[in-house]
């Protein structure tokens, strides 16, 4: 494991920890108003305060959990879907493959963001779990495509043929012969999906279609934007949440590089 991967895992571990303990260590109630209106970062308010005197540091801490939960739930759901569709279509081939890969491509090409915005704003109560499910439905297609290609290259290998010749059932071959060889691809697909889901959730919160009653980093940015934080010069209102998103995204991408380099040694760094 190289330095980049370790760094990625370290940052991810940090945010996971904050997601668990964030609401206990937050110095203030994130929604509580105070008399310190729009004050820049200081000793008592590390990230400054909002227009109504809410502590932004506490909002970021408490908001971490919503982000991580949606990322994890979507990652798991969408990865399961992509394995189901991708491996089945790659392994079976023929008409089933044609139909399933067409389905995946349709989901890929249709612009997800406007579609989810419509769905989320039509739902009467857009709570976190429901949103996670909707995001998962749009997030599985890329993974399915990659898995299909990889499965197709495995399908005719000798060890699979051997299993087939010894009379193993199709499902047994898929689960015990093919899937273990796809682990690196599945893992990197999972991490990629988490990035996608986190970005999408934050975006949806930012444009204001997800319920604003629970804190996440996107909600902070929504309030900053709708209160003209930019015009007021209140940079501390939108910088911390954005940096957290970028850090988390970078950490996940670094982990993905690690997985890619593990699976494809040609990508590893060489000394020229």
């Amino acid at each position: 494991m190289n330095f980049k991967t370790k760094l990625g895992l370290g940052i991810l571990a940090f945010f996971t920890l904050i997601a668990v303990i964030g609401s206990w260590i937050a110095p203030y109630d994130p929604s509580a108003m105070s008399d310190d209106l729009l004050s820049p970062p200081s000793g008592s308010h590390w990230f400054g305060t909002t227009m109504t005197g809410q502590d932004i540091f506490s909002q970021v801490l408490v908001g971490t959990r919503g982000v991580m939960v949606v990322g994890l739930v979507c990652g798991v759901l969408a990865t399961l879907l992509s394995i189901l569709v991708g491996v089945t279509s790659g392994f079976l081939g023929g008409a089933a493959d044609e139909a399933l890969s067409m389905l995946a491509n349709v989901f890929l090409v249709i612009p997800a963001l406007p579609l989810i915005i419509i769905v989320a704003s039509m739902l009467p109560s857009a709570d976190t779990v429901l949103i996670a499910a909707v995001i998962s439905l749009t997030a599985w297609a890329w993974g399915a495509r990659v898995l299909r290609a990889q499965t197709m290259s495995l399908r005719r290998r000798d060890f699979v043929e051997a299993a087939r010749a010894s009379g193993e059932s199709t499902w047994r071959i898929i689960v015990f012969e093919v899937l273990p060889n796809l682990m690196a691809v599945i893992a990197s697909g999972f991490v990629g999906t988490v990035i996608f889901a986190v970005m999408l959730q934050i975006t949806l919160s930012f444009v204001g279609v997800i319920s604003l009653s629970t804190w996440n980093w996107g909600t902070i940015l929504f309030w900053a934007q709708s209160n003209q934080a930019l015009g007021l010069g209140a940079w501390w209102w939108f910088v911390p949440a954005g940096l957290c998103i970028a850090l988390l995204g970078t950490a996940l991408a670094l982990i993905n590089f690690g997985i890619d380099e593990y699976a494809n040694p040609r990508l590893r760094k060489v000394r020229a």
Partner: protein
Amino acid sequence: MTFLLRRAVFYLVTLWAAITANFLLPRLLPGDPVQAMITKLGGRLNSDAMASLYILFGLDDNKSIWQQYVDYWGSLLQGDLGLSFTFFPTPVADVLSQSLPWTLGLVGVTTVIAFVLGTLLGVYAGWKRGSWMDNLIPMTTFLSSIPYFWLGLIAISLFSVTWPLFPASGGYAPGLVPEFSGEFIGSVLEHAVLPGITIVISSVAGWILGMRNMMVTVTAEDYVLVARAKGLTQKRIMFAYAARNAVLPSISGFALSLGFIVGGALLVEMVFSYPGLGYVLFQGIGAKDYPLMQGVFLVITLAVLVANLLADIGYLLLDPRTRREG
């Protein structure tokens, strides 16, 4: 031409899926937001507008779902997308045709710039593997992990508020009339700089990385070794042998991820109040303007499909194997 035929079928299926999703969503999801809106607008809707909204959102319970579907297609084919609530009483189709050119101009141009720039940098980074270019990768990763809209906010904060170099919002200076004059075009370009750079910076990293990895893989192939053995120039091997093969997955990736990229770019328009589809969509969200939101979705899907077709043609030109097939 089996390649083109297959693609044509794919586009038709995708378009059908998008339109059908648009038809089904308001009928499947609970609540009746459009009915509420119609009640609110009350007598200000004339009977034609009312009828088209009933068709688009399935408010007429007496009709079978199949009859509703047929009526829906009939409406769409006549270009009738209903009335916008936000820009009442302008039809959605008119709102969209006004904002589409702005989006095509901004998002279209910047996406192509990002793709070309990223691919060129990726070719170079993959060719010079092990050099300082490798350090570019973690840096661009960080840039691509920043949400488009946040980068836009930072850009406004730095270059419009702190140092007022560029305008923070709009597509052209207020007071100007859209026309073919130097002043107007200059103003449009000036307003496009910040949102354009934002989109390029946040989308270029993906292309660099994808292209670099493909170059690294392709450089190890035998035909590159043969080209070297023949004593061809480095430049020729790099572009005509390695890059030409390595770019193929990048182009199909480009086509498939367009829907995602355009989504991000729409947000940049929202942040900059740029008069394109993204900003219109944003205004629609606030007003729960479903005819407008659904119209935006359809138009964007259509635009992405057309762009896909163009990418296919590019693929066809670069890869002789697809041409020989038929």
